[in-house]
């Protein structure tokens, strides 16, 4: 098995449109080793789906090359299709008139499984994704969550080496989304070497599932690394949240200590009068400065009630890199209303 599941070199994709051409991918280079759970994060229109379409042989790149397990997406399409599969979220796909079993079996035939083997595989997967009760139900009567489970089962029919998941939990409720994530994790863990490429808008989902993440915007990769590596990029200082029974001299006293960048009372602390405690946010040059702070506090007769290091979230990374949060994503160009206000 090749060491690289995905290899993308200088891929550009330009869509023609009536106005100006749209550059969906603007020179992507990417390597995903076999067996990795890889994530693509980016605002709407960043080019995530476009990259997945290229890798799943639905779309040709305008320039550059891409290969899946060493097979070129343009030349070896049939080979790639046999060992890859794709599941997209947020859509209701399926022939409504067929039963869940029939719908899935049909796809086993497209993947060349023998008739009986196909039925066996379908029943196994229906069981695995928890649709046993609905197996004979018409596809049109399934709930969104059930449909998505069926869609996942379809994506696993050919026992793919690599699974592409394009926002698989979009539109699902919390429980359905979690159960889908669990199924995905379980599937990957069952056989070492199974590779997943996931796109999502849910930061927590990416953080929980992905070993490595690429943050994309405007068709370019802005940063790539493990969730921890990415978080470390935005965290140049150590941030602690400290709770004390009392503090003589106030925050200013702590702020003057060597190695302390700033010390501020945590928001909402004032209101917390009945607990009779002081909560502070401490920004230190590095973790080493903590010792001096603790020593100094003891000298002042303060007792530490709680101490917690605050970690940046992926969202912090995202906001720093993309320059905007998910809420305002896609509105990077001020519209007429914004101009009117300015």
């Amino acid at each position, binding site marked *: 098995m090749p060491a690289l599941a995905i290899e993308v070199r200088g891929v550009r994709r330009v869509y023609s449109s009536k106005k100006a051409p749209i550059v969906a991918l603007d020179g992507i280079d990417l390597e995903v080793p076999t067996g990795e759970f890889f994530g693509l994060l980016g605002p709407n229109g960043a080019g995530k789906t476009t990259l997945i379409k290229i890798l799943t*042989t639905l779309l*040709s790149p305008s320039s550059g090359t891409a290969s899946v397990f060493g097979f070129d997406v343009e030349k070896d399409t049939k*080979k790639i299709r046999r060992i*890859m599969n794709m599941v997209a979220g947020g*859509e209701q796909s399926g022939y409504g008139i067929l039963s869940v079993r*029939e719908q899935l079996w049909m*796809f086993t035939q497209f993947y*060349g499984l023998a008739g009986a083997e196909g039925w066996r595989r379908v029943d196994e997967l229906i069981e695995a994704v928890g649709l046993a009760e609905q197996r004979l139900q018409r596809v049109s009567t399934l709930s969104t969550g059930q449909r998505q489970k069926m869609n996942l089962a379809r994506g696993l029919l050919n026992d793919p080496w690599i699974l592409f998941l394009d926002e698989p939990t979009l539109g699902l409720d919390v429980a359905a989304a979690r159960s889908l994530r669990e199924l995905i994790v379980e599937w990957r863990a*069952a*056989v070492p070497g199974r590779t997943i490429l996931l796109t999502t808008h849910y930061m927590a989902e990416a953080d929980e599932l992905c070993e490595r993440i690429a943050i994309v915007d405007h068709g370019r990769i802005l940063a790539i690394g493990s969730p921890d590596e990415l978080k470390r990029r935005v965290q140049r200082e150590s941030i602690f949240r400290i709770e004390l029974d009392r503090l003589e001299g106030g925050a200013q006293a702590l702020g003057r200590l060597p190695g302390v960048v700033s010390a501020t009372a945590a928001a909402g602390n004032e209101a917390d009068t009945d607990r009779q405690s002081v909560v502070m946010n401490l920004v230190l040059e590095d973790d080493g400065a903590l010792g001096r702070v603790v020593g100094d506090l003891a000298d002042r007769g303060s007792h530490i009630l709680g101490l917690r290091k605050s970690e940046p979230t992926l969202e912090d990374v995202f906001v720093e890199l993309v320059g905007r949060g998910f809420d305002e994503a896609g509105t990077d160009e001020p519209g007429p209303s914004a101009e009117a206000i300015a």
Partner: protein
Amino acid sequence: MTAMAGPAATGIDGARFDPSRTEGRGLADTLRSFKVAVLLGWKLEANWTDPFLFFIYSVAKPLSSALILVVMLEVIGGPAGKAFRPFVIVGSALWAFVLNGVAGLAWSVLEDRERYRVLKYVYVSPADFLTVLVGRGVARIGVGLAGVVITLMVGVIALGVPFDIGRVDWPMLVAVSALGLASIIGLGLLMAGVCIQTRQESWSYPEAFAGALFLVTGAVFPLVVLPAPVQIVGLLTPLTWWIAGTRQALFPGGPGSVGGPGSAFASTFGHPDPSAGEIVLALLVTGTVVTLAAVAVFRLSDRRAKRTGLYDRTTGS
């Protein structure tokens, strides 16, 4: 859960990342996809679950259009119109069939893409898309065939069309039917190729195309009434020969639709009406050309769709 491990349970563990999995089984795979596509088409198209709908679409429609034409003939042509009854019945019955085949195949593309949203999943599977579409077309044609037979039977029984089963030219019927079906699928593929490219609501294109063919193929009136250049278009269309051949095989000696005194056929070939052999030959030639052209157009369209990204496009997106 062991099921997630996949086919381990079925004894092909270890072969999981076997490079040979990237190779298919050639013809066996094609046949498998074809078979399941026919089955799927049958389920989706036949409305079997609703015999009433099936009756409306596959029997009542062709039958009522035949009846309208018969009545019109009677009114305009008087008693002489009676000789044209078999002509009209066969034409109407076959026409429903053409709609099923030509428009139906193209509709499969639109339905899969926009209504069922499975087109991209079929497309990312190793199944050959053309094979799958042809399979669905064959199913549609099977459904249409039931309508043809019922319409013809009703015509014979209710309208007193003189039909003598002993006089049917069976070899010719088999030959023109086989070639005709292939041509219908060819034309359907051609339309499907066009529909892949369309971005907007294009459900009416296939029907409009089929409707245009209706006029030039001699389905309900002989070609000779049309201007000569239009007659030539008709003569180049395999459906014309298929309909003429079917008429000739079922009702030998009845009025033909292709030639006649003063027709483009007569002035081109020097005799007024085509012989049975000429009909089959013409059907073979035009059918082959259309089918080859259709496959080429479809493949080109397929490639272009991949270049422009049309496979998961839906109306209004």
